[in-house]
């Protein structure tokens, strides 16, 4: 993210990042995760899983901020996020 000046609380702000895990064969292609990801990190792939649905794939892995909404919305327990490294804001 680009800033026009360094924010005054830059030392305290840490932007978390998450690593997304998808169990493709559990997914039922509902699209909740894709629709409600606040960073548009996910997109439905064109590939089929074993059930015949299109599971999501991580389109922009570096944009994920570990909000966990995909994990909480998924009705099939097919996607979850674990913590990756944390960004610090540098000027």
């Amino acid at each position, binding site marked *: 993210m680009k800033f026009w000046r360094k924010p005054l609380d830059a030392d305290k702000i840490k932007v978390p990042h998450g690593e997304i*895990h998808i*169990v*493709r*064969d*559990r997914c*039922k*292609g*509902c*699209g*909740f995760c894709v*629709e*409600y990801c606040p960073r548009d990190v996910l997109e439905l792939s*064109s*590939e*089929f*899983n*074993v059930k015949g*649905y299109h599971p999501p794939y991580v389109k922009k892995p570096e944009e994920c901020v570990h909000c966990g*909404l995909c*994990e*909480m*919305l*998924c*009705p*099939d*327990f*097919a996607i*979850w996020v*674990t913590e990756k490294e944390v960004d610090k804001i540098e000027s």
Partner: protein
Amino acid sequence: MKDAQVVKEAPIKEDHPMEKILRMDRIPHIWCSTCGIGTALTAFATALGKTDIPLDNICVVSGIGCSGRIAGYIKLDSFHSTHGRAIPFATGLKLGNPKLKLVVFSGDGDIAGIGGNHLIHAARRNMDLVVLCINNFIYAMTGGQAAATTPLTANTSTSPYGCYEQPFNLPHLAASCGAVYVARWTCLHVRRLAKSINEALNKKGFSFIEIIAPCSTIYARRNRLGDGLSLMKFYHDNSIIKHGADTRELDISYQKKIIVGKFVDIERPTFLDSMNEWYRKQFGEKYIEYGGPSD
């Protein structure tokens, strides 16, 4: 579409954080794609992860229906009872062992339709239960019959020309019967729902949370509303959060605004507390309180 093919994936090294609370030998579950019940279950699992109550003491009782299948997937002491009788079954469990924390997790037809009588009496008595009522406005499991909560004009298999009966306003019903915690959330408000369930778990008395869930294969398809995702988008655009709203205004009309939030959060003595206090006051030492099973 480009060359679409089935792709094998590398084994996942970590488990889904909710797997500890699920009966993984029965996953994948039976619910349809875009069904909201799975999301209600994840909210419940999240709330369980944050509660201080030992999980061995929490029991889940379900009735019959799509929502009633929830008990089969939760890795707690879970009971799948008869249609409408989840609340008295849970009452028996609770009174048989007062240390247990009971969660009744069932559908709108089960709890408010056939089980309506038990709902109002358990609320009146302030039985220490948490009732999570998944409202998809229809009897989905059996093919889509009209429920007590089906909105006016909706199409169901027993009202194929549109429903002409007024539906229940469930939060109003629960609150007027004396529930101490009444809330309504949709499946989209996952975080708030999980927080609400957590509050209800930590509260003593009869808590009632209505969870509005999309039903894709039956309700949405019959009413030409798309699928569960379209219904979730509808909740996104049409739900209004109004904590403390008067429960009389919470009626749901067909595809109109839905008011969600926490409406009632009061304190009242529970059934067991009232009973024990009453007898203790009258008989003092002579009253022997039932402490639960002896082993």
